[in-house]
């Protein structure tokens, strides 16, 4: 198993193998002091971190005045070599919140790039744009305008391109 850690506000990603993590886990001591506050100790080095989640299910990591907005994905071992090479895979775009699909901005077959708006969801009188997580093509659209969706409902399928 591999964990993909995307530091979204730095546009940076790391792939962390489970095996590496085993060694790392033995060398690091993590203590949870409160709901959000952790102290990590590794070779006498202290990392004081605060973790939170935003409404898009991203992890917010606060560390020495810095803030990292992080998304982690677990990649199954058999697929990871493909993923690592960035070969064509289908990515499911899921709804981060329950809401009303107010506008669909892309069509099937459209070439989309990372960060491009795919559709808009209205929740709590606020319109939120759902952006493409990758560079790719719109493979299929699973919802239509005016439909109410649950959190994590599949909205679109994007086929990755290089």
């Amino acid at each position, binding site marked *: 198993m591999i964990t993909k850690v995307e530091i979204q506000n730095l546009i940076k990603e790391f792939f962390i193998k489970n095996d590496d*993590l085993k060694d790392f886990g033995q060398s690091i001591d993590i203590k949870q002091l409160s709901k*959000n506050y952790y102290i990590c100790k590794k070779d006498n080095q202290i990392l004081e971190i605060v*973790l939170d989640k935003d409404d898009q299910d991203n992890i917010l990591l606060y560390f*020495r005045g810095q*803030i990292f907005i*992080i998304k982690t994905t677990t990649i199954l071992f058999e697929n990871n070599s493909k993923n690592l090479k960035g070969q064509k895979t289908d990515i499911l775009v899921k709804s981060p919140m329950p809401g009303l699909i107010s506008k669909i901005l892309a069509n099937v077959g459209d070439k989309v790039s990372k960060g491009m708006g795919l559709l808009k969801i209205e929740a709590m009188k606020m319109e939120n744009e759902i952006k493409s997580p990758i560079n790719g093509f719109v493979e299929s659209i699973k919802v239509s305008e005016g439909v109410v969706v649950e959190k994590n409902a599949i909205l679109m399928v994007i086929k990755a391109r290089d």
Partner: protein
Amino acid sequence: MFKKILIANRGEIAVRIIRACKELGIKTVAIYSDIDEKALHARLADEAIPLRGNTATETYLNFEKILGAARKTKADAIHPGYGFLSENPDFIKFINDAGLKFIGPSDYSVRLMGNKVAARELMKKNNVPIVEGTLEPISDKERLLYEAEKIGFPVLIKAAAGGGGKGMRVVYSKDELIKSFELAQSEAEKSFKDKSVFIEKYILNPKHIEVQIIADEFGNYRHLFERECSLQRRYQKIIEESPSISISDQQREKLLENAINAAKACEYYNAGTVEFLFDGENFYFLEMNTRVQVEHPVTEMITGIDIIKEQIKIASGEKISFDQAQIKINGHAIEARIYAENPFENFIPSFGKIKEYRQPSGFGIRFESGIDKYSEIPIYYDPILAKLIAWGRNREEARIRLVNALKETIIAGVITNIPFNLWLLENEDFIQNKFHTQCINQLKLEENDLNWLKFNEEDLLELSKVISSIKFSDMGKKTKSVDQQPKSKWINRRIL
């Protein structure tokens, strides 16, 4: 002296004013909107009056409700803080006419300085330098060319009805003048249905330097030296410091004299700030802020004068408590404003519940906060959360203290601009004092908003591993609380 003061504000400045009142032995009244019921300012005051509603218009801007709250609690004065009603001459008149005292200048001074054209004319009449330019609109090309050459390039063409940068053009040479003039006119016509334009000298990459003034109601004027606030993003100040290291002693003398003259010209009393642009040689009057400023603590740190207490004493009819000769610059202070805004997404406001909170402290550190760990940041008001001020014997000592204190600060649950503040304060250009008011705008953060961030790859990998190691099912799990200790009984006893 007043017996009870109502603070017509919220957040950190309301807390700041409550503290000053407590020092003077004055009772305090807070007002709060529905969502601010549990806000820090409403918890620290002696009394707190709810104003129904949430929007500023329904609450902190509402003349009648505020006066009603003051009457109900028998407050005898109102401190407006900054923002909201602090520079509204009608409110000042309304409060004073109601028989209460507004802690601030007269409505006359505020009205006068609020009109930019009138203020410019008044300054010119009183020999306070202003940016050279025409005071009436220009419509013909010959006149334009004459004025432009008289002023000297670069010049700024500005729509008379203008605002928001529309109809504004910088012209660097005679060749571009006519074309820019026509473009500015058509832009002004489209935007404001009025094609008249002014022309003035364009100050290239200026510094923003301002002077803190205190005057009493007996005609005594004092200055508390200058502040430099050149680091701004879209006219919003981010980092402020005092003194300015951009000016020489002779320039400082001239600056302070100009500021006192500006305050005298509008018959000013109470605390105020005269803002100037500085081009490296000359100062140009920009505007006067007729209230206490967000950045007033840097001045307090280097002079030892409590500006809020001084405001209250002056409003109650006392004379200024110090002579000019007693005021000396002691060391250096720098302030960083902490806003609930996302520096990674073009500074959009961030709101929500505070999940974890730690204030920095230590020698030379002052944290002026409007929040604590029980706060919720609402979407209705200005996103300022707190200000962190560091004092040092010199600029570098203050800067290092500020950086370390920012790194020690924890405000989790919202996204703050602390990472951006750190980037500015640790930047070589800041250390070398090589920056001006346009620096951050010129970075074009909205187009390429992450190129200011740089991180050590190894640290990031380490953090990524930590993240992968923590099971997120653990997140939210509460730790065991420590058993409550039996209370000791000293609390009800006197020391002697």
